[in-house]
């Protein structure tokens, strides 16, 4: 990382876009540890693919174990089909993807996150 880049990330907010290929080889807890490790470095992650309800609650559980005076937790939102239809199931069986999105960030940076079934609104600030 160049000196210029380092200075930029100190004053700005760092977003990281993650392909599902990175997460697919990991088991559930490894995926969540990977997410939290990066979020604790003050990054907002935008990940390809949605989390299942069980993964979401596991994310909250592991997040709770890592909360400290310096790290008060996360904000997150997912978009994607919870109930997969026949078409999506077939695509998944064949190893394909049917979309979905997950946004996770540290709560000290993500001041507001709001979602509706099709959109996520996120307000981030260092103040």
């Amino acid at each position, binding site marked *: 990382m160049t000196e210029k880049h380092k200075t930029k990330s100190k004053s700005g907010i760092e977003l990281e876009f993650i392909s599902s290929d990175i997460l697919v080889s990991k088991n559930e807890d490894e995926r969540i540890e990977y997410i939290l490790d990066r979020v604790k470095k003050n990054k907002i992650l935008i990940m390809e693919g949605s989390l299942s*309800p069980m993964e*979401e*609650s596991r994310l909250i*559980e592991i997040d709770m174990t890592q*909360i400290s005076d310096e790290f008060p937790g996360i904000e*997150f939102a997912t978009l994607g089909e919870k109930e997969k239809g026949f078409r999506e199931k077939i695509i998944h069986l064949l190893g394909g993807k049917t979309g979905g999105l997950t946004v996770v960030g540290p709560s000290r940076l993500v001041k507001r996150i*709001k*979602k509706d*079934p099709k959109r996520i609104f996120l307000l981030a600030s260092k103040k």
Partner: protein
Amino acid sequence: MPFKKLVGWFKNIFGGRKIIRLGLYGPPNAGKTTLANTISMDWTGEPVGKVSEIPHETREVQKKEKIIVRTKNKVIEMNLLDMPGIATKVDYQEFVDHGMSIEDAQQRAKEATKGVIEAIKWLEHVDTALIVMDSTRDPYTQVNITIIGNLEARNIPIIIVSNKIDLEDATPGRIKDAFPQHHVIEISALKGKHMGELYEAIAEHSR
């Protein structure tokens, strides 16, 4: 009355009654403990827990056992489980802002994180869940969606409780719009408003 219904009615009246574990879920400050207290006071005359405006007042699962609820057509026995509020963040600074000392606030935050984990672990052990939402706030939050998604995946009956309808800025219609696939009962746990409708819904949808 069909035979099966008749047998069910006799069973219900004369024994063989199942005790329902009724879990109260939701984010902090939605009014879960106020609701637990109202239910418990209505049927046992005793409260369940302390209520506070400071978030995460309930940091352990609070139980009230053997509450017998009589509705128009049914008698149900339940163990009431008032869960700690589920959140994705617990910032001790928030408690300091409510006037707590730093030390007490840090201790409260530590206990609150354990409470959230305990509430999540209980998700698979309840028979019916009341999801309590504050009708003055946006209901379509990730926490509410995660709780509902978990219960749906486990096929556990859900009743959404749209609480605090006595407040001027309550918009309970938003909750119905956000979760049209679920039964939504509008109440004020504090004022005891529409509690009869809630008991009927619990009797009808529990198993």
